[in-house]
């Protein structure tokens, strides 16, 4: 991979007694779409604000383009931010908002108007250029905010939950706009969100943060299929998490004895001795259902508790004889054939390679 554009080395940020970010090491590469995801208070916004220079790290170093940025003032950086509140200037028109940064940089009036209109047209809101910002709709304001940052022609754009105030269908449209823009411009996007669907839909790489620490960095697929730890496995949801004791190993993987039964999981990267505690996850969409007892060694008989429909997908919640909850995700049309109802007994099974052992647990 090429030289990183941004490096975080042992970065800490404290607010009085509260530790917002602890010992962060992270590389951000030129041209990538990086999403930083986590629940509120996990340190994702603080990380972004440190990139913009709005917070100074308590310790550690942040380099951008090879330069140490710790004490560089916000206005001396090239890190425009799209704010969660949008932070558009209410006393200015859409065009004047977009021109603002160019004006601060001393670009001549005619030139900055030309560039502002170019960006407003590119964002398909050229007709609203002279309108007062307070008279625009949420989606239009969103586009003005993007144009205001992108007109600065930055190497990196920071986005702080920019879609959180929009309607669900508008979010999908803006996601398409953002991914297209990022590919066309070839610049780095650092996108902070609490929404898994936004992060997974747009990002090349996702950073999952928890309590000021990075829990995992990887492609959306890696994180979904191979969560690094229990936190990530629970955070991305729809995972069956089983904990037990390793009793033996064979060529296929390791044998784990859990209260729900004995299962085989794919061999972990770091081998461990028999008798140690092992946690593995099985993604809910990789579990099969059958009325007859299946041939797989990874099988467990469960009772159906409830169902949850989202569009054509359905999630079943089941319980094994020891009371452990299992989740199974499937197409609704496949469910109809099984003719299940609450209290039905059914077999769950999964392939060995789909049982992923969590490292370090």
């Amino acid at each position, binding site marked *: 991979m090429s030289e990183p554009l941004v490096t975080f080395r042992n970065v800490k940020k404290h607010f009085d007694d509260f530790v917002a970010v602890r010992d962060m090491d992270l590389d951000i590469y030129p041209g990538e779409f990086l999403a930083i995801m986590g629940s509120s208070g996990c340190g994702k916004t603080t990380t972004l604000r440190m990139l*913009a220079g*709005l917070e100074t790290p308590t310790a550690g170093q942040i380099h951008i383009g090879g330069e140490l940025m710790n004490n560089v003032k916000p206005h001396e950086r090239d890190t425009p931010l799209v*704010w969660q509140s949008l*932070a558009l*200037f209410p006393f200015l028109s859409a065009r004047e908002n977009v021109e603002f940064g160019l004006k601060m940089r001393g670009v001549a009036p005619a030139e900055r108007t030309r560039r502002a209109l170019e960006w407003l047209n590119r964002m398909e809101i050229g007709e609203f250029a002279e309108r007062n910002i307070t008279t625009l709709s949420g989606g239009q304001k969103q586009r003005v905010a993007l144009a205001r940052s992108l007109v600065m022609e930055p190497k990196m754009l920071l986005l702080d939950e920019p879609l959180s105030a929009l309607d669900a269908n508008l979010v999908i449209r803006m996601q398409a706009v953002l991914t297209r823009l990022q590919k066309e411009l070839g610049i780095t996007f650092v996108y902070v969100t609490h929404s898994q669907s936004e992060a997974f839909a747009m990002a090349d790489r996702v950073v999952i943060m928890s309590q000021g620490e990075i829990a995992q960095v990887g492609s959306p697929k890696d994180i979904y299929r191979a969560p690094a730890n229990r936190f990530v496995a629970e955070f991305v949801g729809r995972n069956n998490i089983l904990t037990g004791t390793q009793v033996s190993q064979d060529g296929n993987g390791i044998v784990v004895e859990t209260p729900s039964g004995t299962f085989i999981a794919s061999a972990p990267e770091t081998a461990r001795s028999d008798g140690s505690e092992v946690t593995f996850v099985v993604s809910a969409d990789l579990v099969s259902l059958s009325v007859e007892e299946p041939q797989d060694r990874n099988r467990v008989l469960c009772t159906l508790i409830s169902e949850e429909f989202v569009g054509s997908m359905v999630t079943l919640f089941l319980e094994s004889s020891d009371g452990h909850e299992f989740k199974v995700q499937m197409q609704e049309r496949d469910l109809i054939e099984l003719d299940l109802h609450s209290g039905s007994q059914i077999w769950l099974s999964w392939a060995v390679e789909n049982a992923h052992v969590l490292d370090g647990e």
Partner: protein
Amino acid sequence: MNQTRVLNIMLVLYVACIFAFIFAPILFSLVFSFNSQRFPTIPLGEFSTEWYAKIFADPDVWIAARNSLIVSVSTAVVATFLGFCTAYSDFRYNFRFKGPYLALILLPPTIPLIIMALAMLAWLSKLGLSGQLWSIILAHSVLTAPFAMAIIRLRLNQMDPDLESAAWNLGGSEWQAMRHVIIPFCMPSIVSALCLTAAVSFDEFAVSWFVSGLNKTVPVVILEIVQGNIDPQVNAIGTFVFLTSMTLVILAQVFFISRQVKSHS
């Protein structure tokens, strides 16, 4: 007739009574200022502008008016500047003893004017600063800055704190952010504060009387007219002062409220 309607009528009557109570004396003063008779009695005499002619012919009144104008305009500028600075310090920074700091800033209007006036006189004369026109400006600025601060602070509280950071983020220095974001945002409240502090200074009597020395302002001249004898000139000059202050106060309201309505729509 239903109950709410009765209640509404009573409320309207009540408000009308309050307004009558406040404005009746001023209205009488206005009516008698155009009355040809020397004593304010009913029935009225003929319509006359004699008293206006008289005060406008009096050089003392002109000097006082000039003094009042200088004092109120200068006070408005100084007090609004101070008010803006304190309001901004409250908006931008968090520090220990911020509560006492704000309480101290808002203190002057709560002190009885006569005490304030005496203290000002004692203090300024010790420093050799009393008896000048700018002694009044100094004292009035102290007195009115809290009003300016309160108005501007209200506006700043409506501001998204990200706006200032956004200006920095787009390459604006602290001063540029102040000039291109904070001040434009606060402009309605700044104009409003200018009008209101000018109005308060224009008709303030006690402090002006104590520290002015020979530089009389309009309210001080009014008292001198009243002290001499019963003179309808006082009605004329009173009406003039009232209309000036009222205009400024109404302007202050118009600037503040119209912008607020606009930003909420």
